[in-house]
């Protein structure tokens, strides 16, 4: 880890590699996860999920289950009455809203894993036992198992809507029409695909709902990511005022975009608690997690570029198609929207048009997963760039260098997303610097000598790719700073912790802003609806940009309040008061000092609002060796370089980047939700759904820079949680292609599994032999 920026003199904590405050409690077993909670009178829920991918529910007989020992209730759609659907949180076009998911299967089932009934019993085991006693009669319908069949509209999942294509999202910059392509000296068009995989956080979901009958109030423990948005949704569904819904966040074992969105269970468990008047707990097990939590990534893309003979890009156009599963969930269209917006990447391409169709199939619905749409886009684009560079005889690095957006071009507009009317622009940066630094760290020139060589029976290859990471999504975030009786400071934030270390980085920011030692920030209280009037949560790499800058605002106000109060006591002007090392110090010569605890009870609210997103950026390089006889790829070296505008904590940032790269490698090589033609998930356990583990990819290096702060916020910060994953698929696929260049193997589909690579190598050899 290294930074090029000089150490700031005025700030002690921001920029320092401070160990995570959270870790002591995690490492000593004192973390508090929702499954750790137990309250008196608590009942347990288990959920009956559809084993049929597409069908009409003819009858549900739960009488035998209800009669079982320890069973308190069995809840089905009939018990709920009018079954609410889960509102979209992002991109709610009227066309897309027609595909919202009901909170429980209502007449039809549309994917394996869809909730049909909820059993409430004395224990989780008794509840699960009772599931088997529920008799569900489902008339199986023909399954829509893939995009191609879905688009024919032969079998319609939502009969009243009449199509399996909710919408097509288009983004445009310039005029990428036939004229632009026909007049270009060079063009190439290829078809790519990225497989269905998902976030798969280590901790499955959990909820504990308690209904307070006297006050008609519901408390839901286990909220995270967007508790305020979910409070609004739940209040509406339960017909309660928002103030009567309390969401409480505990420690969370990973979110990555999937955890914390509003799922069917987020209604069903509170509903059960109110129905029975007893606390109800539900802990998702891994089997249901793999069909219930959002899937992601599943896309294919027909991509074409046009450029000059020297590689200067003229135009890019694409038609992509994302399989979003059986319903549009809270953010089910976000990856598609991002593909449209960022397929062109950090490159100056005058003419761009990308159309992304969302397609409904009988599979688990999708949602955002770290770098949504960006991971997919980068794979397609960077692969095509390497193919084009080879065709043109232009060096792969030169090709990118020639086309990267220049600092002088800033702010540079991204293609405009037409249906949703979204405009965004790259805020700042010098993309050449991260590329150069990546090449230097990687020792590109030296390694290039090994590229394409067969050494000890393995083919060696290298590749480099560039990316953009959008972050700091608005509209705003709110925080409160309060002086406690002992002179410590409590920090209340609307941001959430999903394991990314916000307690630490927020304490750093607050301590610097108040000029107090970090120990004074005794509590960072996040994610629960009690703490601030309105919070916006943690998604889209926004916590530091939005929450961090809001802390700056609150600190400024609190300092003013303290100085005013001190001035009153010392009978001087507020402007004479200096806050230093946790004391308010009066003017010379007395320099009377008042301890902060004297100001107990003072508090200040802060907010930061921004409609513009930040864009961090960087470059990754990979060095691989491919065993052509097995199709195995060894990752020999991997370097990630990013510029995040402002580094708050180099340690946590480094951890984020390494973790993200490993997740990306999982997507590139291992993870794959495979369905059969009946819509059954064939990789529904960790025996078959292959997650990367600590020993699989040991060679990863990460460098973070803060050369180019964002002009959009006082800290200069940009989002930094997702960059590590975005370019991984494209970079490693290009390295594999480079390794196998002598055979002409060109990967167009992820994952790069050994059997698939072996098959490509066999086919390439057969083609060579035929020539």
């Amino acid at each position: 880890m290294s930074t090029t920026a000089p150490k700031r003199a005025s700030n002690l904590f921001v920029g320092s590699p401070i160990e995570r405050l959270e870790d002591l409690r995690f490492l000593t077993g004192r973390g508090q996860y929702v499954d750790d909670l137990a309250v008196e009178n608590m009942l347990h829920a288990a959920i009956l999920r559809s084993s049929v991918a597409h069908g009409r529910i003819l009858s549900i007989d739960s009488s035998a289950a209800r009669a079982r020992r320890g069973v308190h209730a069995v809840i089905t759609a009939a018990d709920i009455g009018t079954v609410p659907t889960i509102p979209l949180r992002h991109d709610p076009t009227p066309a897309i809203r027609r595909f919202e998911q009901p909170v429980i299967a209502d007449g039809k089932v549309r994917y394996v894993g869809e909730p049909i009934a909820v059993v409430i019993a004395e224990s989780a085991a008794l509840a699960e036992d009772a599931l088997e006693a529920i008799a569900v009669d489902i008339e199986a319908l023909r399954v829509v198992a893939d995009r191609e069949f879905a688009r024919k509209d032969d079998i319609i999942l939502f009969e009243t809507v009449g199509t399996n294509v909710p919408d097509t999202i288009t983004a445009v910059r310039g005029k990428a029409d036939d004229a632009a392509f026909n007049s270009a000296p060079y063009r190439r068009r290829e078809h790519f695909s990225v497989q269905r995989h998902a976030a798969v956080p280590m901790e499955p979901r959990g909820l504990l709902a308690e209904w307070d009958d006297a006050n008609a109030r519901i408390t839901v423990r286990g909220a995270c990511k967007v508790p305020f948005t979910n409070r609004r949704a739940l209040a509406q569904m339960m017909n309660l005022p928002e103030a009567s819904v309390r969401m409480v966040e505990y420690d969370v074992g990973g979110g990555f975009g999937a955890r914390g969105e509003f799922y069917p269970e987020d209604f069903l468990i509170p509903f059960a608690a109110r129905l029975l008047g007893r606390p109800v707990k539900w802990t998702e097990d891994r089997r249901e997690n793999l069909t219930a939590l959002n899937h992601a990534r599943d896309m294919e893309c027909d991509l074409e570029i046009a450029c000059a003979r020297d590689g200067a890009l003229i135009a890019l156009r694409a038609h992509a198609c994302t399989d979003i599963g059986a319903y549009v969930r809270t953010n089910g269209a976000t990856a598609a929207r991002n593909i449209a917006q960022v397929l062109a990447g950090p490159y100056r391409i005058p003419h761009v048009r990308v159309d992304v169709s969302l397609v409904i199939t009988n599979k688990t619905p999708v949602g955002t997963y770290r770098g949504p749409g960006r991971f997919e886009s980068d794979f397609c684009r960077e692969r095509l760039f390497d193919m084009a560079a080879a065709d043109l005889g232009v060096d792969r690095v030169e090709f990118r260098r020639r086309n990267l957006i220049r600092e002088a071009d800033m702010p540079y507009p991204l293609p405009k997303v037409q249906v949703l009317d979204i405009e965004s622009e790259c805020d700042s940066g010098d993309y050449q610097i991260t590329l150069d630094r990546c090449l230097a760290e990687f020792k590109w020139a030296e390694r290039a000598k090994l590229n394409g060589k067969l050494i000890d029976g393995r083919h060696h290859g290298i590749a480099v790719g560039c990316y953009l990471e959008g972050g700091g999504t608005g509209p705003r975030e709110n925080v409160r700073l309060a002086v406690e009786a002992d002179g410590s400071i409590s920090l209340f934030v609307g941001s959430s912790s999903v394991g990314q270390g916000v307690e630490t980085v927020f304490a750093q920011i607050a301590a610097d802003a108040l000029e107090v030692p970090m120990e004074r920030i005794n509590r960072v209280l996040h994610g629960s609806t009690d703490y601030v009037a309105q919070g916006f949560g943690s998604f889209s790499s926004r916590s530091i940009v939005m929450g961090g800058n809001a802390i700056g605002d609150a600190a400024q106000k609190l300092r003013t309040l303290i100085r005013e109060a001190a001035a009153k006591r010392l009978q001087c002007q507020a402007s004479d008061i200096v806050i230093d090392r946790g004391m308010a110090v009066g003017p010379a010569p007395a320099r009377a000092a008042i301890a902060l605890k004297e100001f107990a009870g003072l508090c200040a609210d802060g907010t930061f609002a921004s409609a513009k997103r930040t864009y961090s950026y960087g470059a990754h390089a990979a060095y691989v060796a491919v065993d052509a006889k097995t199709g195995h790829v060894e990752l020999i070296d991997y370097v990630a370089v990013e510029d995040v505008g402002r580094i708050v904590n180099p340690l946590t940032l480094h951890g984020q980047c390494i973790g993200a790269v490993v997740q990306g490698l999982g997507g590139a090589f291992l993870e794959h939700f495979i369905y059969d033609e009946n819509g059954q998930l064939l990789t529904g356990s960790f025996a078959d759904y292959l997650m990367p583990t600590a020993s699989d990819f040991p060679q990863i290096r990460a460098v973070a820079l803060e050369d180019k702060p964002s002009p959009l916020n006082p800290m200069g910060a940009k989002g930094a949680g997702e960059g590590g994953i975005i370019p991984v698929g494209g970079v490693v696929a290009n390295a594999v292609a480079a390794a196998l260049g002598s055979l002409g193997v060109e990967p167009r589909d992820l994952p790069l599994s050994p059997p698939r690579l072996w098959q490509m190598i066999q086919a390439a050899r057969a083609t060579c032999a035929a020539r």
Partner: protein
Amino acid sequence: MKLPPFDYACPTSVSEVVALLAAHDGEAKPLAGGQSLVPMLAFRVALPSLLVDLRKVAELRHIKITNEGIALGAMVRWREILDDARLRTAHPLLIAAVAHVAHYQIRNRGTVGGSMAHADPAAELPGIAVTCEAKIAVTGKAGARVIAAADFFQGPLTTALQSDEIITEIRLPLWPAKRRFGFQEFARRRGDFAMAAAALFYDEDGGKARNAHIGAIGVADRPLRLKAAEDAINGTSIDEAVIAKAEAAASASVDPADDIHASGAYRKALIGVMVERALRDAAGLKTT
């Protein structure tokens, strides 16, 4: 993924175990290390009425090395095999194979008897048993009997064991000190079940290989001996031409089915590569 309801017994002798199994007429299941059975319970694909825990059966825990060979009690855990210094010379092929069994935690719990009785076609020990012509000692209501490894495995998760029988011991023939051997396995991640693996050994007589045994794992419904590959090396001095012949013969002698992880064609080629590499290890020849 909560376990289904079942009764539980924890006897201390083989005779008690057999009596319990016999009394439950196929509805009871012996619990050894639990590394396969417990997940199957959690997924509710196994629904026994009684679990007979073998952890207190002391007579199943021995590792005996004699002039006749090696006897592994059914409750010997992978960790105990890897920690037994004698076995490194007494049966280096066994050690090489067991090093590929799953992960640290699983090796601390999993047992040889459990692996044999579970009979996963991609598991290492059943492959070693077939390759080495092991004998499996079992005891049931009708008494004790010994089954040849080649007859023991009958298909995926299917063995010659009767429902009232348990494995008591796995017997591997004596391993000559100068025997040459190799074990090669390919899995998606370290510790995963093999996509294919080859276990092989041969003895040398005047510079020629003889008594070749080549076993294949993960390419059929049970572990196999590859006779054609053995024929390709018996009587030869191992060189590039022989290795190529053995690789081709190994590939040609299997016909794996397609599954979600790989095509049959891939596994067919892969077992050839595993045999080729194991043979190189055995002969001390470098990869070309």
